């Protein structure tokens, strides 16, 4: 097979700010933001559930917007400000969405939870969801196999009412 390449592409330096801390990374361009966070920065709070943008477990906030980090190449985000689940609590005080998830038991195994919470925080910032039906629709990119959806909706409603 003469057309086969064994070459790994050249690494590219990038600088990203994650949860307020700057990081310079040398990454092969096929590295996703998700793998950069998990494997290169050891920020494993952001989860990998499918690696195909199908489950939402990898949701992070990039410049305030919720994004599937598994569909985002890290090199595309040079210079970006990223917030992960590890950056939501401030000085030991949980983000209102985090507290609401505990109050409403909006998770069981906890694996989709960081993505759900980042997505919910992004949703609140968007200001688009006004009622339970809209929350359900706008949170449907985040799968929860434990089936905590009604509790997730209740938690987001609490966070909307008590920001």
């Amino acid at each position, binding site marked *: *097979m003469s057309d086969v390449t064994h070459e790994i592409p050249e690494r590219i330096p990038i600088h990203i700010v994650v949860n307020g801390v700057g990081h310079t990374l040398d990454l*092969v361009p096929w590295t996703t933001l998700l793998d950069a966070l998990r494997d290169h920065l050891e920020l494993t709070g952001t989860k990998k559930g499918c690696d195909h943008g199908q489950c939402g477990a990898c949701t992070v906030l990039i410049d305030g917007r919720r994004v599937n980090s598994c569909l985002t190449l890290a090199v595309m985000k040079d210079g970006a400000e990223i917030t992960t689940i590890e950056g939501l609590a401030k000085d030991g005080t949980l983000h209102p969405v985090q507290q609401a*998830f505990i109050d409403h038991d909006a998770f069981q195994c906890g694996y989709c939870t960081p993505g759900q919470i980042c997505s919910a925080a992004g949703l609140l910032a968007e200001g688009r969801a006004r009622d339970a039906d809209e929350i359900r629709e706008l949170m449907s990119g985040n799968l929860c196999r434990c089936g905590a959806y009604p509790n997730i909706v209740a938690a987001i409603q609490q966070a909307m009412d008590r920001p």
Partner: protein
Amino acid sequence: MNAYVGTPTSRIDGRAKVTGAAKYAGEFSADGLLYGFVVEATIPRGRIARIDAGDALQVKGVVDVLTHAHRPPLADNDDAWKDEVAPEKGSPFRPLYDDRIRFNGQPIALVVADDWETAKFAATRVRVEYDREAFATDLESEHGKAGKLDRPHKPRGDAAAALAGAAVRHQADYVLPTEHHNPMELYATTVVRDGSGRLTVHDKTQGVQNVHKFLCSVFNKKPDDLRVVSPYVGGAFGSGLRPQYQVVLAVLAALELKRSVRVVLTRQQMYGLGYRPMTIERVALGARPDGTLDAVTHEATAVTSRYEDFSRNDTGWAEQLYKSPNSLFSHKLVDLDLSTPCDMRAPGAASGVCALECAMDELAVALKLDPIELRLKCYSDRDQSEDLPYTSKQLRECYARGAEAFGWTRRNPAPRSMRDGKELVGWGMATGVWEALQMPVAVRIVLTSNGHAEVSCAASDIGTGTYTIVAQVAADALGLPIENIDVKLADSTLPQAPVEGGSWMAASSAHAVLGAAEDIRLELARLAKAVPASPLGGVDAPDVILVDGTIAKAGDKARAVSIADAMRHGKLERIEKQKLNHFAEDKSHARNTHSAVFAEVKVDEELGVIRVTRVVSAVAAGRILNTKTGRSQIMGGVVWGIGMALHEETVMDHRFGRIMNANIAEYHIPVNADVHDIDVIFVDEPDDRINRLGVKGLGEIGIVGVPAAIANAVYHATGKRIRRFPITLDKLLD
């Protein structure tokens, strides 16, 4: 004292989970960690003629490529590969053992590299040639080759004759498709090797001690050579009961390369693990015009692999639910070129009771009886298979409470009679049933003089809430605030526990905590009475209770010694007690949980789109240890039932013996917008016979009956009886 048991206590692991601090199997790191990527077979049956890793090994950063022809030794006998929940009959799958291909998606090589991206890239450079063999993967075309099991319940009376003579008969086949668990966490193992060669295996599993024992026998290791831990498990639902192949591959690579290794499967590769087997359920019911049953027969024909016989109890549930003088059950298996099925939430019951409860609905229609009335006519106060009474059975109350909450009396029984704008409205109901199992579990409690306790056990918490209920029971038994209880789980070096499954862990772990706490109480009572001028002088040990951080006389809390004082006088910094709890064997009663499920669907008449707009699940499951996490478990089961009724199906292309929707976008599971109001009712069910706390377990009962209630609601809405699941809109438009 019950300050915590029975209350809606929030999860004690909640903060770790909402902050990202909870670490799952594929998230542990180590110096010089290597990454493994699996190469899978692309044919369903045959042999590997040639496997060439030459190109892969040329990729910079690749350390090794393990195959059946290049690997360290693996056990060569079936006994070594049989884990504690392996099927009795068969020869367990051995990854990278030989050149034989048994199913499409079988792992055939592990590429190990310095980083994950490199391993993944190099995996595409492994060349494989096969000698292909004829194969079969289709249950329905192979149906005639089914082999009968000798295990289902024994027949009673003459069901065939009774059916033939019945005034009203209903018989139908219900087809339940293959389903995959799809826990959100990818299957993963990180093996951390220390300087002395000892391995810490971070594995995604429902049973660390099962995996530990399995790895020791497969790799011929001594118990101290390795340790298996899984403090957090990102869902499993049965898929993690048996050790999965990635743990074998990760340990194999760590031993061969003398390095720490992580192997994470892709979502697609997880479709090569176990699954709920496709099953054809044939149910026949014969009744008198008044609705009493004369005969029940239930025959299941299910998929298994060619190398193991997997089966569960699909067919016996009518024995528990419905009185009938005649019954006959059979379970058949068809061997196919697939991986072995495995337990998936309420294995057997989810499928079998779905068929039974759809059949009961069809019988009610034929008899012109309300479906609840029919079920009450046939209500059985005894488990007919062994003719036993129940430790408790508040199913009547479930029907009553569920119907009331749902508003069942407002139902017009005629199909297509209820409407909401352009949508047809359907109301359906069904019964659920599961077993209340309990297993030996050991717990260790270490109480320190500052009034803190560490409670430890090898049991897993797969999202079920084990951490929290263990803390609640311990806090109550020790008379301490729950904040003072530290729970350690899921480490193979901790006291004995079986796999977490079958809904048995709540009762089993709770009573193990009580056992160890009782020994702590006796020790503290002895110490407290030895304190100079003890207020407990003359009080017998049985009258001593632990409350509010003190050792006190029951009924007179003023007569008390603080734990700190008692331990200081006894010159003890810590008290450690470990106890293995066995439940007394009692074959005089049947033990079951029950539910009545009510569902409302709305069906777009033109487009066939089905929405489940309301579900009420009334559950009788003994005492509920935690009403918050318990409600969540039932709610999750209902969501699974919605998926089973309307969404979930693993679709196979039988020309290639390959799954076509091996991803989580085309294998549909319910999303947030699919789930609306779910009302969970816990019916009061005191049970002082089953165990001391009266606990039965909640993991499975939530799903059972839900698919049938929804299918019956779809019939009520549309007049169409869909017996091939899932009920997708194309089937309604046909």
